[in-house]
């Protein structure tokens, strides 16, 4: 009995003695988990395996058996190192190019100046839809950029306390306004799709770079090739952004971490592309091109602007006698004849 007890004690103590006095080199068990610095090695093995290791958990749910998601770490590094860095640089570069373009080229004038005679281009509803989408998009772009670039750019400027408030507000605002973007997008699709279908002559516009390449005039219909391409970019990339955003904001439809990570990457890349191109759209629709803003501001454009940028549509306006004289247009806008901005500009042009 005494011998048995002694053997049992030796048997229990031997492994402990081996651990205490063993050589410093690693001891690898068949499962591949080192016992040297047990905690470090174990967690490193769990985190850095090539494959996703899944176990058993009493918690029932998507990915609940995965102790640590190694791909999540990869996604976080990609977001911090590449996505935010190159995304920020890309948007800043586009902005710089447009500023440079404006400095070199200036505002593109209309040949012969503005006439003051107008044609109707957009209804009230179409303009409300456009500006709703624009407001929601700008809000989402600003809050999204704060979330993407805030840590490297704003945190050093404002400090942790102010930045945490800003980031928290941006996250809530972004999540709440996201579905409104989808609603506005659908309204935009219904209102403008027919007139944005590609047609004969659009390729000519593209080959001439919208009038920037060569001396010839780039012909365009109600919408030119550039506007149509921008429209379909907004619709298609916008839908991708909206759907990936809904996947991110509603994580209770069975989507796992992998789908969430991918959705985030797709969402961010799509948003960066739209934000970058939208800077060009905003430039061309306002200070970049004379008379362009009027269409979305009042619903009417100068006939000379229509002839210069949308000659095929302008021709139809002439043929069907859709031109509204300056005095009549002023009356429609509730202004005294001769007091409109267009009249003043037209006078300057003469």
């Amino acid at each position, binding site marked *: 009995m005494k011998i048995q007890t002694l053997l049992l004690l030796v048997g229990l103590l031997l492994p402990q003695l081996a651990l205490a006095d063993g050589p410093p080199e690693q001891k690898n068990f068949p499962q591949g988990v080192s016992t040297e610095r047990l905690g470090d090695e174990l967690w490193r093995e769990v985190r850095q395996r090539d494959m996703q290791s899944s176990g058993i958990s009493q918690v029932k749910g998507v990915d609940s058996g995965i102790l640590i998601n190694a791909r999540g770490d990869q996604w976080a590094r990609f977001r911090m190192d590449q996505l935010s860095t190159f995304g920020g640089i890309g948007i800043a570069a586009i902005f710089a190019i447009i500023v440079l373009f404006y400095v070199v080229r200036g505002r593109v004038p209309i040949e012969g100046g503005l006439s003051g005679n107008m044609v109707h281009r957009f209804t009230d509803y179409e303009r409300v839809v456009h500006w709703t989408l624009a407001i929601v998009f700008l809000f989402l772009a600003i809050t999204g950029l704060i979330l993407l670039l805030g840590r490297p750019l704003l945190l050093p400027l404002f400090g942790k306390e102010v930045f945490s408030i800003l980031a928290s507000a941006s996250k809530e*605002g972004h999540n709440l306004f996201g579905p409104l973007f989808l609603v506005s997008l659908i309204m935009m699709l219904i209102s403008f799709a027919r007139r944005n279908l590609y047609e004969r002559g659009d390729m000519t516009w593209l080959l001439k770079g919208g009038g920037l390449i060569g001396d010839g005039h780039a012909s365009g219909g109600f919408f030119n090739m550039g506007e149509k391409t921008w429209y379909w970019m907004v619709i298609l990339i916008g839908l991708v952004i909206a759907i990936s955003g809904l996947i991110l904001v509603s994580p209770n439809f069975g989507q796992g971490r992998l789908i969430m990570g991918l959705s985030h990457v797709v969402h961010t890349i799509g948003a960066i592309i739209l934000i970058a191109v939208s800077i060009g759209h905003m430039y061309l629709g306002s200070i970049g091109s004379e008379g362009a803003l009027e269409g979305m501001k009042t619903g009417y454009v100068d006939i000379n602007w229509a002839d210069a940028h949308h000659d095929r549509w302008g021709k139809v306006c002439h043929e069907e006698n859709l031109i509204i004289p300056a005095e009549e247009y002023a009356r429609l806008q509730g202004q005294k004849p001769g007091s409109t901005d267009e009249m003043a500009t037209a006078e300057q042009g003469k």
Partner: protein
Amino acid sequence: MIEYLIDGPLWYFSLAVFVIGVVWQLVSIVFASRKQDLSVARDSATSGAIRTIFTRFVPHKEISSQITIQVVAGYLFHLGLFALLFFAAPHVVFLEHNLLGFGWTPMPHWAFIVSAQAAFLGLIFLWLRRMVNPVSRLISTLDDHVAAILTFVVMLTGCFALLEGSTGLRLLHRFSVELWLIYFPFSALMHTFTFIPSRAFTGAWFGRRGIDA
């Protein structure tokens, strides 16, 4: 210091201005001197008043197709704002603890989000329509724009403070609410209360003359 001011004196001041201002305006309307109507009544003024209060909730057939945006956006905004104001969980708790002493079942979080989105979309649509339509733009005053923007700011700061985790965002929302309450009685926002006597007055006038309108 700012927290004390916003949660304390400014809150009570804004509430007092709101209550006294609204009561004063309504009493002024009710007791305003009117010319005595000497015409022979062809029909009941009271039934005309009651009928008009309710029939004005639906647009006239003749113009309904021309004002679809205003009607849809108007209902989206007003119903959304009403739900947010009285059935959002933070508001129910606030009203119970700070004003009424009793509460009621708040709406679930998803309904809160949908109401907020409906209210935002409606308000943006209504304000843009006011801006793009030449007639609406001409008859709009500075007060109309200030009232719309101030309401938008209150809703926006409320949505920012949705997590209820930041004192700064909560104070920002409460401060915007206090500005809104102070502005309310002196602005177009008073239509919240005056739409009923306004419709009733018109309805009574028409009813007495036997006009079905």
